[in-house]
């Protein structure tokens, strides 16, 4: 009965709008997902067969050989690159979150000496940049070229994150902090025992922001450690593959056939396989990512 009443009030316009909405959203879904599924299918398909074209969402001749062979390329360089990627993501996230939390906590104190000066000093850096060349020279003078800390230090403190966390801490009830102080707890006890657990949502948001940025980063390797094999990351290895195929643009035969003498792999298969490897962690963490990122976006977007 109810359905009937509903359908009676529907106009033609409603139906047409619905059709258009669902068609366009359907296209959006396909456009967002298809490329990833296609790459996955290519990575699981026999490279010589891929050369014939026409791989869409399913592999035609299923194989996992590509993964094994890609990881073994150039003496297992990719294993090492994966290790560096993980290492920089973990170290970068931990240091960045730790420092951001402490700095945000200090700045959340109302009676902080010279508070305004500190805040202005930090805010200014959101709008003024030295530029690529002077930054490079500073990094060089600090002796960080070709050193692991170059992945951690330059973007360790991001003003935007500091202020998100600070706002969150300020919005926590003051009484918590005060009662702990009266009980004689030191600043760090208050911060790590009381504030930090309560600020977990915002800390998780910032941690994920930083972790994704770290995992996806390749430009700093390109700039500060381009030929240091020991510091290469997965993203940078994939970027090198991409760059070499861009040099051969228009010569898709070369890209598909590649160097057949050494093994079965083709450049396309290598790229697809590496893309899947690089994307996998993002997909695995995706449920957390989208939950906390969206929260973070509204946290930062509404206030300021």
């Amino acid at each position: 009965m109810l359905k009937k009443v509903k359908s009676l009030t529907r106009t033609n316009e409603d139906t047409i709008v619905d059709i258009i909405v669902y068609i366009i959203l359907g296209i959006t879904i396909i456009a967002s997902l298809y490329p990833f599924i296609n790459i996955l299918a290519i990575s699981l398909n026999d490279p010589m067969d891929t050369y014939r074209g026409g791989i869409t969402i399913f592999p035609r001749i299923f194989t996992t050989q590509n993964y094994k062979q890609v990881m073994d390329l150039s003496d297992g360089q990719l294993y090492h690159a994966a290790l560096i990627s993980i290492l920089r993501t973990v170290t970068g996230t931990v240091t960045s979150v730790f420092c951001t939390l402490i700095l945000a906590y200090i700045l959340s104190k109302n009676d902080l000496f010279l508070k305004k000066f500190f805040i202005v000093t930090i805010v200014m850096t959101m709008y003024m940049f030295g530029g690529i060349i002077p930054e490079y020279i500073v990094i060089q003078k600090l002796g960080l070229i070709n050193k692991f800390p170059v992945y951690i230090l330059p973007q360790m403190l991001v003003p935007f994150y500091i202020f998100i966390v600070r706002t969150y801490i300020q919005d926590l009830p003051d009484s918590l902090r005060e009662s702990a102080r009266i009980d004689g707890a030191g600043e760090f006890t208050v911060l790590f025992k009381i504030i930090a657990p309560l600020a977990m949502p915002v800390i998780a948001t910032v941690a994920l922001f930083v972790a994704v940025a770290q995992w996806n980063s390749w430009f700093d390797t390109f700039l500060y450690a381009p030929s240091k094999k020991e510091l290469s990351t997965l993203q940078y290895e994939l970027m090198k593959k991409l760059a070499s195929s861009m040099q051969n643009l228009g010569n898709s035969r070369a890209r598909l056939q590649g160097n057949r003498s050494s093994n079965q792999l083709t450049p396309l298969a290598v790229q697809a396989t590496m893309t899947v490897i690089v994307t996998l962690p993002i997909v695995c963490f995706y449920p957390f990512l989208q939950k906390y990122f969206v929260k973070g976006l509204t946290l930062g977007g509404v206030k300021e």
Partner: protein
Amino acid sequence: MAGNKIKLTEKNVILKKISEQKLLLLLMLVFMIYFIVFRYLPIAGWVMAFQNYKPHLGFTGSEWVGLKHFNELFGDPDFFRAIRNTIGMSIIRLIFGFISSIGLAILLNEVKNAAFKRFTQTVSYLPHFVSWVVAATIVTTSLERDGIVNIFFTSLGFLKEPVLWLGEEKYFWLIIALSDMWKEVGWNAIIYLAAISAIDINQYEASIVDGAGRLRRIWHITLPGMMPTIILMIILNIGLLLGTFTLVEQVMLLDNPMVIKVAETIDLYTLRLGMKLFRFSFAASAGIFKSLVSVILVFTANAIAKKLGQRALI
């Protein structure tokens, strides 16, 4: 006498405050040193643009040349080409980005089925989380001579034969804009969805009573309701016209010898001169130009925002 006394006690209060906060202030000092070294020293490094900077001579030993590099910069056609490319790509990106994300938010808002809405949203921002290296790999694979885009257009009869999209100057800006749109549309729609959800539901109900159809409701309620956010986002983006970090990544990954004339942005011009040709001082002058114009744009946009009654951003 009395004034002196007050001053003294004020001083005492400050001293007491400092001694109470000495641990926090000490930590603060460390953080300030961090910002000075990593953020302010590079700005101080701008002096090199007025020198013939040589790494082994340093800032104190290098020869001063005044505005020589700036004169040379403004006489270099490549530099103006880079400005044109940057602004051109930025504007096309902005137009596509705005229309697509506003549109997606409106469409999502029209979906009554909550599960489908959530699914579409979740899927649409997947590309946001992958790196530009991955995105660019996908873009180049799709745009191959025998890639999906050519297959699609030739099978529908729009194209007689496959096009090498990335190798043609006339398509490059469009590819940059469309690939950025593909990657960011779902993500950018979030902020507009938030704006829509803040619209008073009574307005919709009243309009239904008045007999307004769905299209009129979109046009007369949803869009005006989003306007403050849209204007805010446009203003925020003005400061980014001379190029963002993502534009650097995107162009660096997608450009190739065939399109270099339309692809080089100000940042890439700076990089080429600085890192490949080692003309540090000259490259720094281009960087300074970009930084200064960007800051002026940001503050102008902020002033406009205030005039329009928006909350100031800075």
